[in-house]
């Protein structure tokens, strides 16, 4: 007899896999069989739940109990105590870091409470390799509705009305883009999904593709119907092997069920979908470079116009959207544009998925309504800064974005407010930095990235980013010169205005935004030869704090006479003379000398 009374959902996202979920799942299947429960308990591998910090994650139904940091050694107890006897295992529950209260169910955890999960609603709750689970969750209803009850123009109109804007970075209105492609003359058209996801620290698109591939596929087919295309490509980087594998399975299942192929839903509409693996160059995320890469040529951007909607893949009208953009489509069609547009702000509708990384307690994936504040994301969802350190800045928008300081934490998140603040929505990477992070070093990090990813086609980007990087390098080495800040600003302006594509046009943003909000750190590096965060090794100066009693021990031990001060008064270190030997720090009886400035 087989009667399934319990489902054990084991997270099979890349994060949980690397913390051992595969071993947990294998052990679980063995143990369940050993106890003779395999006819009543089913083990399901799901996609990412987003709470990667606490992985491997497990949910057991019907109780809906959420276990975190599950190890292979825990498996016998889970089977004996939970699955056999029905007792919840307290020690595997999630504990809220502040209250230390253990929380048995998913929805009660702060990390999830403030989230609004539309794109990620299935992620972690269904088996991505099973089209049936997607259908049971309401999947492909949007496609059926669009194809049998709506005209292509009506579908486009609905997407326009929803206010959806592209999630790939620039935030262009999606419905408008579809309309351009629809109205473009031509028999043959293409739909392309941009799954290149090149921003360092970003993994939203990967998680959607791994956790709910059919949602993206469904969005693409609907787009094909709306613009009159019968063929599509998903451009996904080869470094995402699991995403590619799940997509292949999903496409095969969709073909078998007749969601892809000829005469879908008996409407006469045909659609074929292919995967193109990219080699992981950042610039290939830029749409014109991406199209060249699909065509088998070297991925280099070209000037626009013509835009892809007019002349795209093999010269045919092409609509290109980001993974998350496509993942929004089904709920717009099923629930209607008005319902969708209830979420968000006036000009930014819906939700956005962010990848939380850096010095934050709950690293992971969070889907939030537009209009939420940065503070809510970082403190309520993200659980605050690691080790109780002080927040310094948050980098948003990847290499094209910017760094925002503490007094901007209450900024509401939408496309326009972020751009106005000198950052950018970008694809959704959020890197949180604490007081030990040097902002000049951060700018250097991103510029090192863009400089090495520059394709070299246009001079401003090729030469300009190199010169900017040279200047940043010398500043962090303690060799900054008078006038370097002005030179950086000058170069930045030039590159922004003249580079061929978005890569160069936005590459200076991390430098400009740190200059805007953390200029004093640049000045300290150049003028005082000090890195205030104590991060740049050549410039880790020392400071004497208020705890100084003026005993004079440090002055005596300093080999270069860099310390000044009268007995019984607070001493100071002359940074220009200091050779950073650290002798004073070890000598101070009051622990009043610390690294940094």
């Amino acid at each position, binding site marked *: *007899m087989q*009667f*399934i009374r319990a489902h054990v959902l084991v997270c099979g996202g890349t994060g949980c896999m690397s913390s051992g979920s595969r071993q947990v799942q294998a052990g679980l299947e063995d143990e369940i069989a050993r106890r003779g429960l395999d006819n009543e308990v089913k083990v399901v591998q799901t996609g990412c739940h987003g709470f990667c910090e606490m992985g491997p994650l497990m949910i057991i139904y*019907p*109780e809906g109990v959420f276990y975190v940091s599950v190890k292979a050694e825990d498996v016998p107890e889970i089977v004996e105590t939970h699955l056999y006897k029905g007792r919840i295992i307290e020690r595997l529950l999630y504990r809220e870091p502040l209250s230390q209260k253990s929380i048995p169910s998913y929805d009660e955890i702060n990390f999830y409470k403030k989230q609004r999960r539309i794109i990620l609603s299935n992620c972690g709750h269904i088996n991505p390799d099973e089209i049936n689970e997607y259908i*049971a969750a309401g999947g492909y*209803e949007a496609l059926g509705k669009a194809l049998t009850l709506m005209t292509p123009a009506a579908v486009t109109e609905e997407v326009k009305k929803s206010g959806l804007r592209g999630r790939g970075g620039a935030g262009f209105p999606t419905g408008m883009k579809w309309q351009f492609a629809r109205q473009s003359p031509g028999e043959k058209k293409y739909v392309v999904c941009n799954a290149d996801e090149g921003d360092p620290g970003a993994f939203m698109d990967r998680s959607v593709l791994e956790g709910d591939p059919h949602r993206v596929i469904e969005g693409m087919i609907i787009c094909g119907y709306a613009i009159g295309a019968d063929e599509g490509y998903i451009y996904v980087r080869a470094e995402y092997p699991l995403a590619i594998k799940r997509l292949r399975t999903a496409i095969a299942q969709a073909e078998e069920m*007749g969601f892809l192929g000829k005469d879908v*839903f*008996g409407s006469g509409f045909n659609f074929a979908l292919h995967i193109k693996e990219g080699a992981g160059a950042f610039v290939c995320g830029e749409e014109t470079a991406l199209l060249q890469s699909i065509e088998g040529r070297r991925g280099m951007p070209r000037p626009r116009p013509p835009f892809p909607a007019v002349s795209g893949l093999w010269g045919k009208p092409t609509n290109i959207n980001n993974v998350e953009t496509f993942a929004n489509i089904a709920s717009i069609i099923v629930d209607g544009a008005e319902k969708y547009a209830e979420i968000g702000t006036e000009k930014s509708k819906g939700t956005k998925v962010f990848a939380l990384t850096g010095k934050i307690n709950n690293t992971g994936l969070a889907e939030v309504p537009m209009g939420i504040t940065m503070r809510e994301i970082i403190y309520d969802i993200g659980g605050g800064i690691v080790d109780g350190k002080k927040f310094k800045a948050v980098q948003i928008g990847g290499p094209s974005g910017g760094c925002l300081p503490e007094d901007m934490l209450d900024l509401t998140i939408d496309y326009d407010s972020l751009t106005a603040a000198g950052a950018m929505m970008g694809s959704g990477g959020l890197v949180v930095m604490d007081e030990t992070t040097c902002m000049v070093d951060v700018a250097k990090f991103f510029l090192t990235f863009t400089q090495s990813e520059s394709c070299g086609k246009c001079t401003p980007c090729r030469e300009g980013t190199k010169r900017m990087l040279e200047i940043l390098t010398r500043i962090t080495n303690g060799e900054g010169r008078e006038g370097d800040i002005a030179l950086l600003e000058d170069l930045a302006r030039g590159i922004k205005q003249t580079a061929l594509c978005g890569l160069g046009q936005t590459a200076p943003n991390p430098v400009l935004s740190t200059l805007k909000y953390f200029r004093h750190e640049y000045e300290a590096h150049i003028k005082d030869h000090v890195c205030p965060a104590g991060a740049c090794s050549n410039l880790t100066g020392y400071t004497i704090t208020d705890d100084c009693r003026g005993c004079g021990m440090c002055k005596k031990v300093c080999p270069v006479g860099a310390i000044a001060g009268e007995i019984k008064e607070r001493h100071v270190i002359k940074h220009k003379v200091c050779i950073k030997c650290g002798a004073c720090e070890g000598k101070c009886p009051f622990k009043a000398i610390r690294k940094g400035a």
Partner: protein
Amino acid sequence: MKSLEELKKLREKLQSDTKLRAADGIKVIVGMGTCGIAAGAREVMAALMEEVKKRGLAGVVFQQTGCIGMCEKEVLVDIILPGAPRITYGNVRPSDAGRLVAEHVINGQIVKDLVVAKSV
């Protein structure tokens, strides 16, 4: 896939497989403490599941619970219909499974001779 109707039918059929991940529905709770297991709780649960399966009932959720202190009345089985009070049956044997499922789960009739408690 030829029509929206066909998809909807398929979805309804498939939902019975994932239904136990939704929180509504009928709950059958079996006492699985040491006392319950010693009195044959596993066999009772297996018999109940067999009955539910045989009758093709969707949306019946099985859970286990620990000892509630009425050890001499084990095996204890609770049945909760949506919106109805929790009915506790005692001294349940595998041979009672058919009656519990047919009379209570399906028809909402409490099986009086087995009841030991009722609570909200």
